[in-house]
């Protein structure tokens, strides 16, 4: 009963936030399209396709601390809190995927002007794969956000930010100083995202699934020792 109530509590909040986001983005795209129609111009805002992938980790970060406190006060165990949070974030990601797929089907200019996946991987891939890409991609970024939020609560913001900055610095140092590293990195990333020689269309989906799983694992491990005051 408690787990069900927890998922409902979190999912409603997250899906509502995602819905408001979709309305705002939809309004902007509609306004841009209208301007294009009235001016007889060809206007699009394709970069808005990245925004859901930024929204989800922000939602995970902004809601995690408050939710974990509330749910533990309601008597849920730490694993139950993580399970509820993952399920709720998953619901929001599925919602965004559905909205994306609906736009591909219903909005004539969507596939070639707004859908990040279809524009990158080909218009023939269809709404089902677009839905999966959006849902899994958002799940991956929210998994990363969830891991960051859990580590932040466990170790403190300063330590986590410094650790991330150090990792980025080490990475950049290697890329700039080791011969061929930058090319190798670019090549690997391209392959993982399904581009380049030998890459499969399944690669990005697998990448997103692995990142999601890692994020959830890190969050679960961090939450086990969290103290709630």
């Amino acid at each position: 009963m408690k787990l069900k109530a927890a998922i409902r509590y979190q999912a409603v909040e997250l899906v509502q936030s995602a819905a408001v986001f979709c309305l705002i983005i939809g309004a902007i795209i509609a306004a841009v399209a209208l301007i294009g129609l009235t001016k007889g111009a060809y206007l699009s805002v394709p970069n808005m396709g990245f925004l859901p992938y930024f929204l989800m980790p922000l939602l995970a970060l902004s809601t995690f601390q408050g939710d974990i406190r509330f749910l533990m006060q309601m008597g849920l165990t730490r694993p139950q809190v993580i399970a509820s949070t993952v399920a709720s974030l998953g619901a929001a990601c599925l919602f965004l995927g559905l909205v994306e797929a609906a736009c591909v089907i219903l909005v004539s200019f969507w596939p070639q002007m707004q859908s990040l996946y279809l524009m990158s991987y080909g218009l023939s891939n269809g709404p089902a794969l677009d839905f999966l890409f959006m849902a899994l991609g958002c799940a991956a970024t929210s998994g990363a956000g969830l891991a960051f939020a859990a580590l932040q609560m466990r170790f403190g913001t300063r330590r986590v930010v410094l650790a991330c900055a150090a990792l980025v610095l080490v990475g950049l140092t290697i890329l700039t100083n080791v011969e061929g590293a930058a090319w190798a990195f670019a090549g690997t990333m391209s392959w993982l995202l399904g581009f380049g020689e030998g890459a499969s269309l399944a690669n990005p989906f697998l990448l997103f699934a692995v990142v999601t799983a890692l994020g959830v694992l890190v969050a679960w491990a961090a939450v086990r020792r969290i103290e709630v005051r």
Partner: protein
Amino acid sequence: MHVDDLIEQMGRFHEGFDAKRAKRLAKAFDLDVKAKTGALSTGYRTICQLVLALSLDADYLLLDEPVLGLDAAHRELFYQLLMEDYLERPRTVVIATHLIEEVANLVERVTIIDEGRVLMQASADELRSSGYSVSGRAADVRAYCEGLDVLDVDELGGVAVAYLLGTPDAERLNDRLDTAPVNLQKLFVKLTEKGE
């Protein structure tokens, strides 16, 4: 989150939660159910938690400093509602408090704990009869206390009050000395001060 949202959520998380009772109790305490929980004062935050606790259908209720931040009127109301709740639905209520005298008439058993050690454990009546106070002129009080188990003596301007364990010694008492049942708060303070 608003107080009425919190009451609704409690009903979803706890099967035995009585939302109607919670709203009735909130009204009794003048708790605004439309207020945001984060914007409540310390006292009303405590009241909100007490309202939720009293509306739960739990066999055991553990209350840690339940009247923290409450004014006298609300404290009185809480004790009254707690008694009514207990009479309606007997359950085990454990209250951790420093305000012993306020709860002494409500509770069946009292345990005095100091630094993790149990100093005394008895019924409220037994605890009250475990000691007494003697007051009068300082010299008379000192004479009375000779050789007895004295917890402490407070002296001020030639008048003294001594706190002793046990029962009054009728042979030592005289017209210039008054005895009274021990104040539980004082007993607690003196026991913990002594570090026994």
